[in-house]
């Protein structure tokens, strides 16, 4: 269908919504990040002093944002890398029909359907100095120590986030597996392929798309995760788990430095745009059926 005959006007409501819900707030956030907006000026925020890039320099030089970015990125990367094999393995394990498969599949989804607030609260209780986790470790003769503050708190965050987020990888891997034509399995079996060869040459290529998407989504979820660290550790946050979303929150709602906080939010947007752009390029999600032409225009 030639472009000019398409009923593009039908997209108008969506476009208006996009402008209202995404473009306008984004523009406002960008604008605020250039203002010295605080509790003294926010009543008439339009008139707050314009400070150019001062908020960005302060964020980078003096606010702990760099430390937070390093922390957020490494935490998100570790969690994503660890959840990937767990998710894929769980999907493979529940691929074939067996008695009780439905139950196992539902149980696998439990961490994913629990609200982050509940996950955080429950783990906060488990990880108390005299909590269940340290009780179990003590039986093994290990002194668990402090999980909600100090160096181990980073690993506590990693472990809890792994627990809460692997089902996403599992779900998308499972979706990928469903799309593998059973004929391929039979053909591979006829050719005498072992389980590893079958996995390596038949199944994995089919999983690349959905699992790639899952990895990106998981990474973005992890890096943007506010609720879990906030509920687990509270504010002020121990230095070892002062991730970017929590720091941004503290600057806004505890220190009332809205400008500085907006600058941090913009920085984190840039941060998550990098893997996203890489991914969109790799899978060409932005290209329609009818060609590269569209993609290059977008």
């Amino acid at each position, binding site marked *: 269908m030639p472009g000019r005959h398409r009923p593009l006007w039908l997209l108008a409501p969506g476009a*208006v919504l996009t402008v209202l819900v995404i473009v306008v707030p984004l523009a406002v956030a960008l604008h605020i990040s250039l203002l010295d907006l605080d509790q003294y000026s926010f009543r008439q925020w339009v008139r707050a002093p314009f400070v150019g890039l001062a908020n960005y320099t302060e964020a980078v030089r003096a606010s702990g944002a760099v430390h937070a970015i390093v922390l957020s990125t490494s935490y998100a990367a570790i969690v994503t890398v660890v959840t990937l094999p767990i998710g894929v393995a769980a999907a493979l394990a529940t691929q074939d029909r067996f008695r009780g498969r439905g139950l196992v599949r539902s149980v696998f989804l439990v961490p994913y359907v629990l609200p982050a607030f509940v996950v955080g609260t429950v783990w906060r209780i488990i990880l108390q100095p005299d909590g269940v986790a340290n009780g179990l470790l003590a039986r093994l003769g290990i002194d668990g120590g402090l999980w909600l503050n100090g160096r181990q708190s980073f690993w506590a965050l990693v472990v809890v986030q792994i627990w809460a987020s692997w089902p996403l990888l599992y779900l998308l891997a499972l979706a990928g597996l469903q799309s593998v034509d059973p004929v391929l399995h039979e053909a591979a079996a006829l050719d005498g392929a072992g389980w590893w060869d079958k996995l390596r040459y038949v199944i994995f290529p089919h999983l690349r798309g959905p699992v790639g998407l899952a990895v990106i989504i998981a990474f973005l979820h992890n890096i943007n995760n506010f609720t879990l660290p906030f509920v687990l550790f509270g504010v002020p946050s121990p230095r070892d788990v002062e991730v970017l979303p929590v720091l941004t929150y503290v600057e806004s709602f505890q220190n009332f430095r809205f400008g500085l906080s907006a600058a941090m939010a913009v920085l984190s947007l840039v941060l998550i745009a990098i893997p996203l752009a890489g991914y969109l390029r790799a899978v060409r999600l932005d290209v329609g059926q009818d060609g590269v032409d569209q993609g290059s225009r977008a």
Partner: protein
Amino acid sequence: MTAKRVVSALSGAILLASTLAGCGSDSGSTGGGETLNVLIGANTIYPEEQRKWFDDISARFERESGATVRFETFATPNDELTKIQTSVLSGQGPDIYAIGTTFTPTVYATGAFLELTPDDWTKLGGRDRFLPATLGISGPDREHEVGVPFTTRPFVMAYNRELLAAAGIDKPAESWDGLREQAKRLTTGGRYGMAVAYADSFDPWKFVWAMSLQAGNPLVSDGKARLDEPTVRDAYRTYLGWLATDRVVDPAAVGWKNAQAIAAFGAGRAAYLPMVSATSKVTLDASAVAGKYGYAVMPTVPPGATARPAGGQDATSILSGDNLVVAKYTKHRDLALVLVKLLTSPDQQRTYYETFGELPTDASAATALQADPALAAMVDSSARSVATPFSGAWSQVQLALVNVVVQSVPGLSAGRVDESRLSTLLAQAQSSAQAALDKAK
């Protein structure tokens, strides 16, 4: 495919329309009579009673003035802040807010709330009818007051009478050093001298503030932060030392919030529970120590001293409770003042105390309660409460103070308070507090 598109377009349009409608619906007045909107903290201990109280007040106000009152609640201080921010920005929202005392300076700094003129105070029944201590954080000075004292929740400490008697202690100590010595004697057989919530987001600064002020340092004076001083260092050393060196607190307390400390005391596992208000009574009366505990004012002699030094203040507690503020954007200014007068009237304050256990700010209502021995410590502490510094930057100072404790906790398991680490943290706290104060207007 086309049908799907139409459906999505339609649903988009409906969503859009409802969003726009949502923006415009909060006009704040209904039908003939006027409506006042009041934002107040949700009472998690007495939710049913609070709903009933809302209805009672609305009914009574309607009888007396013909206008209705609509109460909205917020669950956390952050909810409240968000609501204040959006209302202040848009110039519409609740007419009256009930806000915490320590948050009043920040709210004042926004310049969005009504400064009470002498005429306004007269309409409220006179400024003199309030307990003087409760007016301590209504404004930066008498000419610029925004907050009308509504309730007061002074901090005290609970003590287990049986455990104290068993250790041969006849009354709670009046100095922090004395409290530590008593706590040491009380720490035996799996029981600890004190229950302290080291992981609470607010408790720690209240201790440090009280000890410093008793030693003569108000932490902020004339726009200068005074966090990196020996008095403050002594306060942290004492507070952290209870756990690290004196070992009079359960080591697990590094993970406790206030509620967990109350629970530990309620289970009889600690002899003292400092830094609680009257609201703890509900929990404790339903616990294993019901009938075996009492309240006393916290020590007012600073650490390392046997008597309060010259310049030190007799501060038993921060000035704690709620103030009522009226928004400048309100279209019902006089009506709002009438409602504030009703809410702070002696009989309402008595009802409020009887329902929620929060103490009155009206002097005559407070005097009437003084006779109750169970409340003696609270009433005493209420009169000896001292307001935290009136600065729009106080929230940041508070955060800096708590941060020192949070970042010190991992080192405490080594069995000492690391002096060099404390110095670094105090220097950081000082500089961030000073930076916040420098921005204050």
